[in-house]
């Protein structure tokens, strides 16, 4: 009993001293609570459908950030992992009758293999060469999908897959819980020592190698991790839409994920996730002006970038929080002295 009380007290202290003092952390908590409690308020199938898709794409965008934001290996063919995950899960489900909880991880494993297949040749390439080469992989796969239409369904894709869950609310909880869990996991990975090495590879790969770190291994690790998370997103998408078609491999999907991630701010994980939650529903809202939808979408992205070239969420965070010049702890912007070391903030 005492043990539980002690930990409860500790949790409360942490919440009071570390979470409630920073608006960005409060925002994250509020976001998590809203996502979890939303079905209690509204069970509108349309709303839930949009949020499920948003969550799936949030995992996808965050996985791009894990690879391209952190290690700086700009990947323009990220749809490959999504498509391999989707096709893998769909085929396993259809031909081997594996239920979603088995087919999605196996599809993601296929995406890890795809990550290695892309990653190994990419090790020799740098910068723009790498980006433009990765762009080619999903197109090659798409050509194969069309060429072997008997097996892959060609243009129509693989359909008739089991549903993710039996009800729409079930779908919602599967997608949202996975989104929250996986994004937290990705954030933890990037916050660990591995994440620091990823950072360092982006900044100066030669220096990292000089420090005795096997950058090849870490780059391949980044490719496979990113492939895994994107593959899960792909599998979820296939099971939710109940179809895995060539649209999951399209160039425009690869471009869209880059737009999401850079719009939200790279090297943050929360940036791309937030950006998807802003931009994907925005695209749905813009359905009221159907003809101008993509035009307005591109316009919004362009204008916001001109004012916030580092992305939306880092800009917002800069506005509401300040970093203490002495101890580097973040403080709410309204404070004049640091909450830890009482140094002046201005």
């Amino acid at each position, binding site marked *: 009993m005492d043990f539980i009380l002690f930990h409860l007290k500790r949790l409360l202290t942490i919440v009071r001293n570390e979470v409630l003092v920073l608006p960005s952390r409060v925002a994250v908590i509020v976001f998590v609570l809203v996502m979890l409690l939303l079905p209690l308020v509204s069970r509108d199938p349309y709303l839930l459908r949009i949020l499920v898709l948003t969550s799936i794409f949030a995992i996808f965008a965050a996985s791009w950030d894990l690879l391209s934001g952190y290690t700086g290996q700009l990947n323009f063919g990220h749809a490959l992992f999504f498509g391999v995950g989707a096709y893998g899960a769909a085929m396993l489900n259809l031909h081997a009758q594996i239920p979603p909880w088995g087919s999605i991880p196996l599809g993601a494993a296929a995406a890890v293999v795809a990550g290695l297949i892309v990653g190994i040749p990419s090790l020799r*390439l740098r910068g723009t060469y790498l980006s433009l080469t990765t762009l080619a992989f999903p197109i090659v796969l798409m050509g194969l999908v069309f060429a072997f239409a008997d097996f892959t369904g060609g243009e129509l894709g693989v359909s008739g897959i089991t549903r993710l869950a039996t009800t729409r609310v079930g779908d919602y909880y599967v997608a949202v819980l996975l989104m929250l869990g996986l994004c937290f996991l990705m954030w933890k990975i990037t916050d660990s020592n591995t994440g620091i090495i990823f950072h360092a590879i982006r900044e100066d790969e030669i220096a990292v190698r000089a420090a005795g770190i096997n950058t090849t291994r870490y780059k391949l690790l980044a490719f496979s991790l990113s492939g895994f998370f994107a593959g899960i997103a792909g599998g979820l998408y296939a099971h939710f839409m109940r179809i895995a078609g060539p649209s999951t491999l399209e160039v425009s999907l690869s471009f869209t994920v880059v737009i999401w991630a850079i*719009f939200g701010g790279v090297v943050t994980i929360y940036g791309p996730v937030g950006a998807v939650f802003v931009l994907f529903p925005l695209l749905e809202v813009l359905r009221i002006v159907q003809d101008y939808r993509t035009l307005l979408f591109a316009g919004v992205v*362009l204008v916001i970038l*001109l004012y916030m070239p580092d992305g939306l969420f880092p800009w917002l965070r800069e506005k509401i929080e300040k970093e203490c010049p002495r101890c580097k702890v973040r403080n709410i912007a309204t404070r004049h002295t640091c909450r830890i070391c009482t140094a002046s903030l201005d």
Partner: protein
Amino acid sequence: MGLLIDIIMSGLINGSILALLAIGFSLIFGVARIINFAHTAFYMVAAYCIYVVTQQMGLHAVWGMIAAVLLVTLLGMITYKFLINPIREHEGAVLIATIALAMILQEVMSLIFTGTYLSVPALIEGYAVILSVKVFYQQLLSFGAALLILAALYFFLMKTKIGLAIRSTAQDREVANLMGINEARVAMLTMGLSVGLAGFTGAVVVPLTVLEPGMWMGPLIMMMAVVVLGGLGSLKGSFIGAYILGFTEALVVFLAPMGAFLKGPVALCIMILVLLMRPEGLFGVSFEEER
């Protein structure tokens, strides 16, 4: 025999078009380190411009060509000045700014002309029969025009002072700046030149293809493959790479089963294989020192 001529014609035309696009793309990448995803979107705009001038206004195609190149060059310089230049320090932002720009151009075109397939009749009707194969005059004309522009571009870059400035900025921006070259102005000029080339390509190609707002995506991918294959920033590489991939596409289309689906993948596989052996492309300059 007939098949051979078909393959050669199709390869030459594909190659010349890719060469024009890739050299423009390569120029602006070399000078300003911008990956311009909107490059082929400008090509699409030029093609529509030709359609308007010849079909809707009823003027001669030469006027259409001049109008298209001028309009697109102007458009390119304006977008460079107001959209790309302010955020040039942020690589990622430039990247999606150009993607967004391509999307905007596509949407504007589909709003004005709707998404239907349009076509422009050939500039010269008729065909010659070479070894019992029909070779349309329009194909020959497009090929000839492409070669002419490539030659003119070569002289411009190699023999004029501005060409020298462009090449030296591409080689080393800082040193070029120290030598008194106005880097910002060269970048702007190169953007105009690069986009103008894309516009010219669109004008030449339009009688041979169908016109639709999504027509920029396919050439974009192939053009990037060419640029990477030949080596980024290398004009000679872009030229040779374009013909390699152009002929590959033609061979696959005419010889392989399901060729139309496989032409892109096969060309891209060739690019990947070449990169595995020569990571900096066929004629690429190694950017190793740029850390």
